[in-house]
């Protein structure tokens, strides 16, 4: 299953990349316009940097930070 087909777990928050985002675990880089799931701590920093914005999408997201169901 490719990263973009993975679905988020319950309670996961989804964000839209405004800048290219490198994920920690050897996943493909997330390009601007793509969505990714982030922890609250990650989101706080990346929102402040203007690297992401809150997305309304709830699935079909790129992976992020070990928050995926198997």
């Amino acid at each position, binding site marked *: 299953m490719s990263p973009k087909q993975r679905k988020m777990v319950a309670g996961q928050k989804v964000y839209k990349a405004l800048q290219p*985002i490198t994920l920690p675990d050897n996943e493909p880089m997330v390009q601007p316009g793509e969505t990714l799931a982030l922890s609250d701590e990650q989101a706080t920093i990346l929102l402040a940097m203007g690297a992401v914005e809150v997305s309304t999408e709830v699935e079909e997201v790129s992976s992020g930070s070990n928050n995926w169901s198997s």
Partner: protein
Amino acid sequence: MAQTTGALSWIDAVMEVSTDGISYYDVSGSSNAVKVDGGERAISEFFTANGDTPILTRGKRSKLEVTFAGVYTEVTGELFDRMIGVYEAATTMYFRWSVKTHGTGVFIFSTSAGYLTKPVYPQGASDSADAVQIEATISVASIAKSIHA
């Protein structure tokens, strides 16, 4: 404006290589420097009979050469081991580095796919006590800045 407090040195840099642009291997333990050359944008000038200064027009950017410098070792997975096969087979390689240790918000610089252009073989002289050093240079079309999640 107040003087910056955000200046960085290279002491916490991270240098990584990849053969597919997805799975990167940390070679920071056998590498110590990154050099970037090329990438100049072509600028042309044209003078008219009337003017004293040129009209400037812009062109494209040239290719970049990125060099990872490090120490020669014969340890599997370190810089020389990861470079020699790629150089001899002329297969693609990706470089990625950051000035700070990886963490959320850190800037990551990643090359597009490139080819090693210079031999990576060790060189030295018997009158030197220096560690044997190597350099791995790839030619690439672009370098992308991204932000670590």
